[in-house]
C-alpha cells in the first residue's frame, strides 16, 4: 500500500472531468490527515466543491472572501492556540491549519494578506494551486499567467501575442520573507507533493507550497492529458520542482535531459498562435531560468 486509503475529499463535486484542482485537494487531505482545518478563498476549488447545501470536504472547512484566506487562516491558528492555553482544549493534539488558494487569490488579490501572515510568523501552511489564470470566471489573465499565453483578457491577435509579461515567481517572493519552508510541486508527482506537504506540516512557522495544476478548459487540451502535461511542464524546465528549507535551496526533481518546450507548448490551445520563432524565444528564456537554478 503506497498511498493512504483514507478519503477525506468526497466524490460528487462539480469539477470538470480531469480537474487538477480536485487532485490537489485530494492529495493535500491524504497527506495532512483528518486533524486539519481548511481555509479556502473564492476560486474554482471553492465553487466546485461546495455548492450550498452540499460539501465535498470531510474536514472542518471555511470559505472566505477572495483576499483574506491567509488572514483568516492566521486567525484560526491563533484561536486554536488560545483555546489550548486558556481552556485546555485539544491537549496533546496537533491541528494543521491549511489555506488552499488559487493563483488569483494568492498572487493577485490575496497577496497582502498572505505577505502579512508570512511576516507575522503564524503556524500555517498556505498552498497555492496554480492554474495560471482565473479559470473559474472564464479564463482571465492573472499575474501567474506565463509569457505569451492567450486568455480572454490577453487574447492573441494581430497587435499582441497573448500575455506580454512573464509569470510572477510567487515561491521566490515567499522565500524572500525568510519563512522556514517554501516549495514548488506538481500534481503529476504525487509522492513528491505529499512528502512536501507532510514535511511542511512538521515544521513550526509559516510555510508555503506552490503546486502547478494543469486546467483542461483554460489551457485547452483533452481531459485525459492533465497529468501528462504537468509532467511535461516539469521535464521541460518550465516549472522546476524545488524546496527551500531554512534558506537552503534544493532541487527535488532533476530531469536527466530537459525536453524542448515545444513539446509542452504544442499540446495546448492557449499557445496555438505561437510561431516557431516565438517558441524559440520562450526556449531561450527557460534556458536562462534553468541555468540560474542549476537544472
Amino acid at each position, binding site marked *: 500500500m503506497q498511498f493512504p486509503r483514507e478519503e477525506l475529499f468526497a466524490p460528487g*463535486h462539480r469539477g470538470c472531468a480531469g480537474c*487538477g484542482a480536485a487532485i490537489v485537494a485530494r492529495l493535500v487531505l491524504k497527506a495532512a490527515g483528518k486533524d486539519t482545518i481548511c481555509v479556502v478563498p473564492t476560486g474554482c476549488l471553492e465553487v466546485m466543491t461546495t455548492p450550498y447545501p452540499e460539501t465535498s470536504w470531510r474536514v472542518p472547512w471555511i470559505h472566505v472572501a477572495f483576499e483574506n484566506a491567509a488572514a483568516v487562516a492566521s486567525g484560526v491558528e491563533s484561536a486554536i492556540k488560545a483555546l489550548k492555553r486558556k481552556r485546555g482544549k485539544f491537549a496533546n493534539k496537533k491541528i494543521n491549519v491549511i489555506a488552499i488558494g488559487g493563483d488569483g487569490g494568492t498572487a493577485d488579490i490575496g497577496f497582502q494578506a498572505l505577505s502579512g501572515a508570512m511576516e507575522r510568523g503564524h503556524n500555517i501552511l498556505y498552498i497555492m494551486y496554480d492554474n495560471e489564470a482565473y479559470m473559474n470566471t472564464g479564463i482571465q489573465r492573472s499575474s501567474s499567467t506565463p509569457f505569451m499565453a492567450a486568455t480572454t483578457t490577453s487574447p492573441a491577435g494581430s497587435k499582441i501575442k497573448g500575455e506580454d509579461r512573464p509569470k510572477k515567481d510567487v515561491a521566490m517572493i515567499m522565500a524572500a520573507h525568510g519563512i522556514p519552508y517554501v516549495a514548488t510541486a506538481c500534481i503529476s508527482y504525487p509522492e513528491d507533493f505529499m512528502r512536501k506537504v507532510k514535511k511542511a506540516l512538521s515544521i513550526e512557522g509559516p510555510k508555503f507550497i506552490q503546486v502547478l495544476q494543469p486546467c483542461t478548459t483554460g489551457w485547452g487540451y483533452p481531459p485525459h492529458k492533465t497529468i501528462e502535461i504537468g509532467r511535461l511542464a516539469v521535464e521541460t524546465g518550465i516549472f522546476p520542482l524545488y524546496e527551500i528549507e531554512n534558506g537552503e535551496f534544493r532541487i527535488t526533481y532533476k530531469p536527466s535531459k530537459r525536453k524542448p518546450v515545444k513539446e509542452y507548448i504544442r499540446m495546448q490551445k492557449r499557445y496555438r498562435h505561437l510561431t516557431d520563432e516565438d517558441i524559440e524565444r520562450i526556449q531561450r528564456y527557460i534556458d536562462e531560468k534553468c541555468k540560474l537554478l542549476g537544472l
Partner: protein
Amino acid sequence: MVTIAAIIYEPGNSIRNKTGSWRTFRPILDNNKCVKCENCYIFCPEGAIQEDENGNFKIDYDYCKGCLICMNECPVNAITKVREEK
C-alpha cells in the same frame, strides 16, 4: 435545509450528487492485467477508483466522469475505454 451562517452539518454530503451521468467514455479496468501501481487510484480527481477487500481496484461508475486520466496513466494498458450507449 437552510441554516444560519450557511453551516453544513453533514461533511462530504456531495456524494448525493452522482456525477456518473457526465460520462461520454467508460473506462474498463482489467484486473488480470493490473499490476497495482496505484497510478489510477492517486490520479483520479473523483476518488472513484477504490481498492476492494481482495486488493483489486474497482471503478465506481456512480461518480466516474470519464476523464480517462486513469487510462492515460496506466503503465500496462489495463484500462480501456468504450463509448457510453443509451
